[in-house]
């Protein structure tokens, strides 16, 4: 299933004497095809993350629509949109995003637990093995390193086998070995049929991507 | 084997010691009669102090014992002992006639409160240990 953005833009208001309106993302048409890994690069503040959050259904665009297949994300109410994100969109946010009160295994199971869906240990454990932290299943997030936490976030995003995977700087602050391991994982997901978006400013990522786009001052262009 | 000292360990020791020291000082029973003789509440206070001393020793031994099962057993032993302490003033040994007298207004309720808290702390300790298995 394809994720499309039709004429989306995002405007922020800020208190400045020169101009109090500023566009984080200018009107953009963008499609994320299934089975492909799309990379967006650009300097920080260029609007990459804003675009990703709009695609994820977390941030309503000022104009335009975001479509998952035929469904307009922002035409749904909050509960429906949340459920849709839970089931079909895997998001790997920036930074460390594990819940501190849950163990590693519980964190990975979170998307299922949240909607009361039964989940055995089998699938989450295989995901933890795939990201290489199966031994830490009963550890709490405060015992994990930055790289391990990032891998945990990836395993969590993959639990529901989402059709769309949105990764925001998944390799920042990771060493070379971890960076490549994470990128390989995202590549695998694309090969298995998911529409994958990778937002990064790391050079190494390009070799894993099917397509690289460049974002500057809220404008998206082919590099 | 456990080395950690948790809240219930400290609570049991502090409460037992408070009962022992309290019944000898702050909430001691009535003083001697004008003719110098003691009333029965004095002996009730002494008996309670004896049981409180036993409770304090049990709580101290608990802290020294590293074995979780021994600690569990000692917690269980403290419950009937604390119950005994609560029953001594008024039930097992008679107190004075007037409710306004020290032994009935101060000692008996204070002993009861300490005993209830010791039983509660020991109960919580046992429950927590059983949960951990």
């Amino acid at each position, binding site marked *: 299933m394809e994720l499309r953005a039709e004429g989306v833009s995002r405007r922020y208001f800020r208190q400045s004497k020169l101009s109090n309106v500023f566009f984080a993302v200018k009107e953009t048409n963008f499609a994320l095809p299934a089975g492909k890994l799309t990379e967006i690069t650009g300097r920080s503040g260029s609007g990459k*993350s804003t675009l990703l959050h709009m695609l994820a259904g977390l941030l309503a665009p000022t104009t335009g629509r975001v479509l998952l297949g035929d469904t307009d994300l922002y035409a749904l109410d*909050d509960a429906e949109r949340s459920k849709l994100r839970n089931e079909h969109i895997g998001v790997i946010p920036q930074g460390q995003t594990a819940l501190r009160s849950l163990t590693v295994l519980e964190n990975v199971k979170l998307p299922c637990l949240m909607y*009361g869906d039964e989940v055995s240990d089998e699938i989450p454990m295989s995901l933890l093995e795939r990201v290489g932290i199966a031994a830490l299943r009963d550890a709490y997030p405060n015992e994990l390193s930055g790289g391990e936490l990032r891998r945990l976030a990836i395993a969590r995003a993959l639990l529901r086998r989402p059709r769309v995977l949105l990764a925001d700087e998944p390799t920042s602050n990771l060493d070379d070995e971890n960076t490549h391991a994470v990128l390989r994982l995202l590549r695998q997901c694309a090969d298995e049929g998911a529409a994958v978006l990778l937002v990064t400013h790391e050079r190494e990522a390009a070799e894993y991507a099917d397509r690289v786009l460049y974002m500057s001052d809220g404008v998206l262009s082919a590099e | 084997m456990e080395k950690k000292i948790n809240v219930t360990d400290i609570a049991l020791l502090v409460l037992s010691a408070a009962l022992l020291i309290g019944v000898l000082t702050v909430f001691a029973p009535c003083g001697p009669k004008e003719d110098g003789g003691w009333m029965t509440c004095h002996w009730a206070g002494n008996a309670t102090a004896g049981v409180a001393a036993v409770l304090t020793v049990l709580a101290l031994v608990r802290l020294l014992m590293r074995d979780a099962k021994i600690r569990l057993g000692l917690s269980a032993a403290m419950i009937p002992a604390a119950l005994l302490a609560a029953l001594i003033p008024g039930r097992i040994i*008679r107190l004075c*006639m007037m409710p306004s*007298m020290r032994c009935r*207004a101060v000692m008996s309720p204070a002993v009861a*409160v300490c005993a209830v808290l010791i039983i509660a702390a020991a109960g919580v300790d046992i429950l927590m240990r059983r949960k951990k298995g």
Partner: protein
Amino acid sequence: MKFEKDLSVKNLKRKPARTAALVILSAFLSFSIFGGSLVVMSLQNGLKSYEARLGADIIVVPNQARSHGTVDSILLQGIPGYFYMDESYFEKISVREGVEIASPQFFLASASAGCCSVAVQIIGFDPETDFSIQPWIRESYGGAVGDGDLIVGSSIEIPANRKLVFYNNSYNVVAQLDETGTGLDTAVYANMSTIREMLESSTKQGFRYYDGDPARAISSVMIKVGDGYGIEDVANDINVHVRKVEATQAKSMISSIAGGLTNVSRVIGVLVVVIWILALAILMVAFVMISNERTKEFAVLRVVGASEKMLKRLLRTESIIISGVGALCGAAAAALVVFPFGGLVKRSLDLPYLLPDAGVTAALLFGSVALSVLAGSLTSAASARRLVKNDTGLILREDA
């Protein structure tokens, strides 16, 4: 719902210090309102029962009564006292206009009550005319109080052989009265001839309570005023026309207690309000501080697919657990103070103090806990709105 509950419990367990602090703060709410209202209700209850037990409109005592204790201190605090006058005064008083029923009473302090060094108040009444003590006795004892029989107040410990010794004479305890929360609970009751016998024995043992003829001694006269007569007028009439006695209206004895009760209730009320304001303010600040710390956690839940409703439920569950556990702990702590230490409260306030019955207490407990949980969870609601409506995108960017 199960998820929200599980996660709440885990969140609370992972932060034991924070949870304990919030629980203790919430406990103050139910502790103060349950404890405070229980004490105030016990005082009101005590006043009511004192009023009921007094039973008379006017109480007449000899002028010199104040030197050996007053009617107030005997009836209210149970401090033993005695004062006597000759029976002839009773005759003079009972014939005054407006006096419908007059009944003499006789107060004697025991020298020693066998077990303890304190003296016990012994109150004698005349079974023929008495209208204030006998109705009360009938509530717990059907038989007549014969010579040598004793009725004891609810606070007196009855010995195993049901005998009490006063001035070397042994008497049978035939019944125990219901609790009144006043000094009457620590008194012993007997009919006139029994108590005069005690007075005679005491005189033989060298105690000199009364210089006159013990067989003609009385301590006070309880008066019921007839319909159509003003109580104040009758009291004034006695004070003017019968010398060496003092007639006091029962109403004025009650009203001085009611005044004390109002003062104590007001102090308790102010304390409860201050504790509530402080505790709720601190709770609110704490929840705001915690919510700042938790914005990230909630953004993560949003990312994974939690709806706003779920987040609200999660916060509500947490705050209900905190305030619920706190309310129960607070109420339990209040119960551990108010119930066992009732005697101490009564002794230090010098006011009649009678705990409400189990039904009222249970209702009070339920109401206090419910109110505390409601107030506690409302304080968290203010910060919850902000937490739930936060812009997830912005929060996740902040640490980039």
